């Protein structure tokens, strides 16, 4: 009796556990693969905060015809293997209708085949490897301008405005860092600027002294950094340790609150080219910032905005399609447009959006916009 009862309890528990993950009929499940642990966790948690903010806003406004949206977040650690596992889990277990994934370019690239296998729309607002949308991946949509687009405008700024001729590039050793160096090399050349030295470092590396010293000895007149907040903060701390005084032009997280927290005074003076900065004055950005500040302390950082835009794009598509059918969502995404804090989100034939780009300079703990470019023009 006792053992059969225990068996029964175990069965009930097992059923409860497995069915717990199944969707409740009155909620629309959406997924987010973000690096909430590991060396990009600083930024990943901001992405999650931004995504949750978009979902809360949507639900408060009544959801989709009274149906609320539920966001499931899985940790992809910015690693290809963990990110694919996270995406599979969200699609098969949580049955999400659309997915935002997966922060780092290498991880996103690994998630793309999963999206195609299960035919789930995947939105990305953070990865910047050009090859993610070239060639076209039918189920993948990117709101973030990639490194070739960024290079077109940032290279001109570096060469004409800052007048740097020979850069030492220190870039993270993944698709983001490598594609940035590959994309920037030819455009910089057009303006007469070159990379005198290119060194790649691993995510999570802590000792940058030897590569910074190599940069110092290379005779470069500027430092070109590609990376995220944790790596970036350590590089900048050690930059001062070595007594370096070169101007720093960066791509990545170098104007986020997380970078300022981790780098402290070493963050000052760094230029960064991104889709976000402090002091952006378009209406959508102002609305977003004031809504954000009612719920959160401080100015929203790049990744909070990016997470928000990823989810908002999915939610806008849900609203316009008025359906949770994945095929309908995909065709809606292909034709729709909406006014986001970073400019109009409209996907081209390759499912790539062309938004605003801001060059910022760090001044007393803020990434202040010093130049704005509309990449959808010309």
């Amino acid at each position, binding site marked *: 009796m006792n053992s059969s009862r225990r068996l029964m309890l175990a069965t009930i528990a097992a059923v409860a556990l497995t069915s717990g993950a199944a969707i409740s009929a009155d909620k629309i499940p959406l997924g987010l693969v973000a690096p909430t642990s590991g060396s990009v966790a600083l930024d990943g948690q901001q992405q999650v905060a931004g995504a949750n903010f978009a979902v809360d806003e949507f639900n408060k406004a009544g959801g989709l015809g009274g149906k609320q949206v539920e966001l499931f977040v899985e940790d992809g650690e910015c690693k290809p293997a963990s990110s694919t596992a996270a995406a599979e889990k969200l699609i098969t277990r949580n049955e999400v209708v659309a997915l935002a994934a997966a922060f780092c370019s290498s991880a996103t690239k690994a998630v793309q085949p999963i999206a195609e296998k299960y035919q789930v729309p995947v939105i990305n607002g953070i990865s910047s490897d050009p090859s993610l949308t070239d060639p076209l991946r039918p189920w993948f949509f990117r709101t973030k301008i990639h490194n070739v687009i960024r290079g077109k405008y940032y290279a001109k700024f570096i060469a004409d405005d800052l007048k740097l001729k020979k850069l030492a590039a220190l870039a993270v*050793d993944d698709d983001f860092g490598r594609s940035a160096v590959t994309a920037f090399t030819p455009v910089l050349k057009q303006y007469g600027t070159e990379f005198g030295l290119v*060194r790649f470092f691993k995510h999570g590396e802590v000792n940058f002294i030897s*590569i910074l*010293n190599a940069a110092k000895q290379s005779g470069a007149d500027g430092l070109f950094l590609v990376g995220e907040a944790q790596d970036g903060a350590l590089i900048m*701390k050690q930059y001062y340790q*070595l*007594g370096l005084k070169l101007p720093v032009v960066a791509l990545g997280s170098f104007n986020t609150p997380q970078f300022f*927290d981790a780098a402290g005074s070493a963050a000052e003076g760094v230029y960064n080219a991104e889709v976000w900065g402090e002091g952006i004055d378009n209406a959508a950005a102002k609305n977003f910032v004031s809504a954000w500040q009612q719920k959160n302390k401080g100015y929203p950082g790049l990744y909070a905005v990016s997470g928000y835009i990823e989810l908002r794009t999915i939610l806008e598509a849900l609203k316009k399609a008025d359906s949770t059918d994945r095929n309908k969502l995909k065709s809606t995404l292909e034709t729709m447009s909406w006014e986001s804090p970073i400019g109009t989100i409209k996907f081209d034939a390759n499912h790539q959006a062309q938004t605003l780009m801001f060059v910022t300079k760090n001044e007393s703990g803020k990434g202040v916009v010093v130049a704005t470019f509309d990449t959808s023009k010309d």
Partner: protein
Amino acid sequence: MLQDIASGLVIGLAYAMIALGLSVIFGVLRIINFAHGEFYMLGGLMLYSLSSQGFSFFPALAGAVLGTMVVAIVIDGLVLKPLRRSDEVTIALATLGLSIFLSNVALVIWGPVPHQIVSPFSIDPLVLPGGVYLSRLELFAAAATLVIMLGMHLILQHTSIGRQMRAVVQDRDAAAVVGLNVDMIYQMTFAVGCGLAAVAGGLLGTMFLVFPGMGLQAVLKAFAVVVIGGMGSFSGAVVGGLLLGLAESVGGAWLPSGYKDIVAFIMIVVVLALRPQGLLGSKQVRVR
């Protein structure tokens, strides 16, 4: 090149400091402490918490080291003491479990996000002859390692407690027979070893960043250092640390950074092949 050598020596002494504690614990308790990196991490994170509570750097560092030692004493009592007579593999596995436990507890308390500790020294580097730049904090950490190593050596060789520790190393049972409190010596050694890890965690954490995952990287370096220098040997830890730091720094200037760690492993392989007890380790015969 001069800069690479100077940076390598300084970072090497920092590696040596992490390795010292590991070496002390191995030397006396014969425990391969896989949780060593987590005590390093606790030192760093406690320092972060204390200094963000408004304590100034050095009192906060002292607090973090004492706090870590208290944690070490509690863990010794709860986990290691019951296993004193178990074989080495069991104890090593227990410390591996401890490592996972501690890093997850730290995740719950501090979250995964890295923090920066504000350095007590000026951010401006010191310029040495030959155009070599070193930060004040790096130099302080290097000096602290040397002082601690010297202090440990003097205590071991010239004090009663040092003699007691050496007696326990030679023969635990005989030491107990002549009236030494073996358990107390074990507990104290473990606490001191973990305290050394905490000092390293605090100083290196200030140089870099502190977060729950910081221990893994450190413990791998520390193991490399003690294997190269010799398990249980203090001067071996320093020599091993310096060699590793130099090889990484000079190698890192020429090799792609992904290959930097290869240097350490090649050194380990060479040392193990030619001198398995480590460069300064002695072949120990031990009665149990």
